């Protein structure tokens, strides 16, 4: 398709989604503040104005057509853009020097590109509530209401925990009832942060804790995740470096780390264990499909939304927690250092890992999770030039990994690694893959022992919601919350868009290519770990397996349905959360209320409701004077209430 742009004839892709994309493909980037190719078009910021056949239009909402005459540089357009920027800036908290996005903020960049030096409008202060209740930090005073986070959270991740609220100048992006994010169903994937054009969304900065530990003279041990090494070069202008991880090892040693291990070793460990778990389940045909469990955002997503499928999650810990446990519980003994003298820091592309490390069952293992961006910060403040650092190998024994283990950094990596183990131990006679849509791959595998299985590999939690409708088609499902897997994690440097993620996946592939070991079974130190320390089944389970629990989606609060004042009463609390509701808890509640009202117990029995008692697997649930009745019925509740009722 041919169009004219500022008098030049250009040939553009006729199937481009809109004029903005079409021009981007030929190297012309129209300024934009609310357009993302990954989600639906919003068309609100008006920064992307262009003139088409004499009319000013927003290029993100305009379809290209043959022969259209486009002007992208007219005094009028420049004036309008400047006005829009000034309007946005007038109500923006412009603390650039201390902002997390300083240097990578789109708004800041445009203010500079368009030479905004003064703002003609009255400054309008926005409510300055900073939500620091979770690894995802939200500061509404910096929000420009582009809605990118809202659409990413809902359309890509299928979570939808934030949305626009209120109207007019009071409009803001927030959770239901302004609940702190840490108490909601947010899975902390950080994808909203990855796309926020300003500093309104950022990730909790924990670097101070590292400094404290170094100062206290603890034995600081580090471990680096696969995806970190793919992204750090972007920031420092290094190209195609396959020894990036080894440079980082050397750098961390300079910073005072005693040992630096490779999380890819943990990935080998996890895949090895998970492959056996899967093969067992497959033989017995139980708890299928098996879900991978190394993505903590996905795990939390299941806990909130699909509690009845928790048994399907592999019980193997994530590489971070599995390797962490081995370091704290096994390694510490070998080197004769007490585990509380070891300060274990993991470097992750991931924001959800910060949450994972703090989960009750994982306390005391990983002491600190730092994102790739925090590592970048550390490099920058140390003034070390990574280009000049001589690469150094990871420390033994947890320093080597197979190609497949390193592959955990991108979507499909866990599946491939599990398959490597099965190939080695059982043998694979046939494998066949298909890609029904972007972000979803299907696999059909036949093993030498005659078993066949079907796998699905998915990224983006929104797509998982679709997959849930035909789960019975699969025996194993790999899920990574972030698009393209961990290379696109919420803790990775900006920009963190599709193009950058694909590039990182490519670097990871080259880095895998130079590894000599193919499958975890060839990992000599892994074999040794199994022989020496994980031989005993019970000990192994204790060390590298874990458990999950249903999680409520609403803050814990009693709903007064039929309250009774005073203390001499019996209290019945009926769960109205999704699982229990679906299992008929309302009908049960109605029966109870009718019974209480009709019989002479009114005034002695109070009826309350609640949203989720976190026992969703056995719904409906009812609490009678604090005692939990699972799979409750009207009769069960009456019996518990006692004779006189």
């Amino acid at each position, binding site marked *: 398709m041919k169009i004219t742009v500022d008098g030049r004839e250009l040939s553009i892709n006729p199937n481009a989604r809109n004029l903005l994309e079409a021009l981007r493909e030929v190297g012309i980037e129209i300024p934009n503040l609310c357009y993302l190719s990954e989600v639906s078009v919003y068309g609100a910021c008006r920064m992307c104005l262009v003139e088409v056949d004499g009319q000013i239009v927003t290029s993100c909402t305009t379809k290209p057509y043959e022969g259209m005459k486009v002007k992208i540089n007219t005094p009028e357009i420049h004036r309008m853009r400047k006005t829009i920027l000034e309007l946005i800036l007038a109500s923006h908290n412009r603390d650039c020097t201390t902002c997390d996005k300083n240097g990578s903020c789109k708004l800041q960049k445009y203010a500079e590109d368009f030479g905004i030096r003064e703002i003609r409008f009255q400054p309008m202060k926005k409510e300055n509530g900073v939500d620091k209740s979770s690894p995802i930090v939200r500061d509404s005073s910096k929000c420009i209401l582009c809605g990118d986070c809202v659409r990413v959270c809902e359309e890509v991740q299928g979570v939808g925990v934030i*949305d626009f*609220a209120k109207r007019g100048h009071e409009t803001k992006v927030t959770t239901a009832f302004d609940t702190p994010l840490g108490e909601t169903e947010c899975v902390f994937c950080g994808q909203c942060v990855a796309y926020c054009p300003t500093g309104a969304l950022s990730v909790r900065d924990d670097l101070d804790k590292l400094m404290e530990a170094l100062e206290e003279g603890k034995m600081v041990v580090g471990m680096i995740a696969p995806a970190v090494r793919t992204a750090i070069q972007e920031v420092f202008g290094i190209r195609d470096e396959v020894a990036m991880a080894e440079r980082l090892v050397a750098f961390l040693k300079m910073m005072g780390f005693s040992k630096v291990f490779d999380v890819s070793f943990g990935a080998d460990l996890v895949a090895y264990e998970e492959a056996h778990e899967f093969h067992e389940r497959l033989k017995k045909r139980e708890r299928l499909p098996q879900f991978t469990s190394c993505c903590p955002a996905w795990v939390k997503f299941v806990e909130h939304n699909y509690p009845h499928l928790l048994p399907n999650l592999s019980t193997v810990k994530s590489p971070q927690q599995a390797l962490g446990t081995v370091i704290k519980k096994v390694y510490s003994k070998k080197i004769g250092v007490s585990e509380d003298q070891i300060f274990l820091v993991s470097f992750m592309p991931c924001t959800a890992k910060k949450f994972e490390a703090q989960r009750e069952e994982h306390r005391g293992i990983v002491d600190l999770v730092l994102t790739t961006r925090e590592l970048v910060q550390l490099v920058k403040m140390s003034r070390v030039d990574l280009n000049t650092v001589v690469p150094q190998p990871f420390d033994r024994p947890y320093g080597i990994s197979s190609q497949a283990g390193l592959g955990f950094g991108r979507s499909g990596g866990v599946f491939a690694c599990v398959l490597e183990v099965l190939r080695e131990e059982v043998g694979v006679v046939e494998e066949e893959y298909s890609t029904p849509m972007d972000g979803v791959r299907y696999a059909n595998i036949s093993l030498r022992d005659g078993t066949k299985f079907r796998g699905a590999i998915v990224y983006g939690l929104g797509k998982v919601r679709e997959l849930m409708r035909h789960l019975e088609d699969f025996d194993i499902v790999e899920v990574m919350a972030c698009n393209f897997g961990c290379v696109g994690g919420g803790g990775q440097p900006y920009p963190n868009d599709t193009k950058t993620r694909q590039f990182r996946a490519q670097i990871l592939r080259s880095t895998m290519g130079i590894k000599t070991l193919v499958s975890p079974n060839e990992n000599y130190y892994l074999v040794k770990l199994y022989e020496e320390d994980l031989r005993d089944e019970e000990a192994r389970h204790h060390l590298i397996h874990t458990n999950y629990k249903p999680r409520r989606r609403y803050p814990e609060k009693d709903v007064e349905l*039929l309250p009774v004042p005073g203390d001499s009463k019996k209290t019945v609390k009926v769960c109205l959360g999704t699982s229990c509701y679906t299992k008929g808890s309302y009908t049960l509640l109605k029966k109870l209320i009718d019974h209480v009202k009709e019989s002479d117990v009114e005034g002695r029995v109070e009826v309350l409701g609640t949203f989720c008692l976190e026992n969703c697997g056995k719904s409906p649930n009812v609490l009678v004077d604090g005692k939990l009745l699972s799979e409750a019925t009207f009769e069960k509740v009456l019996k518990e209430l006692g004779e006189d009722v």
Partner: protein
Amino acid sequence: MERTLEKVEEVLKRYGYKRENLIKILLEIQEHYRYLPEEVINYVGVAMGIPPSKIYGVVTFYAQFSLKPKGKYTIMVCDGTACHMAGSQEVLKGIEEEIGLKPGEVTKDLMFSLDQVGCLGACALAPVMVINNEVYGNLTREKVKEILKGIKEKEREMANA
């Protein structure tokens, strides 16, 4: 307060739990409770499978919805310039003495709620208050008390009948 969710279920069922009916559903529920309690919004979210953030967004966007309880009798006291000069403070005092409410509050039995508003366009009658669309003008502290006493009396009779 008793709040059995019976009405909520009835409305939801009538509208087939359908997303496109969300606003109608919320309006009807609000008519019943005179506002939208947080737990009712959460309940609707569970029953309809809509994230609570979306419902919160809708409810805070449209002026018709209220997240704060309103009384059966909503009292609006004008504090525009004319009314202020003519003694709107006296009106407020009268209300506080009779039913113990300050602006922004609701009585425990949800009978009365009180808000202070800007000019109501009836300055000739200043000071002015409006109770459920009925305008009362030329008020004094005593007159206000009489009016409220009258309403309470009427309510009592209705309750006994």
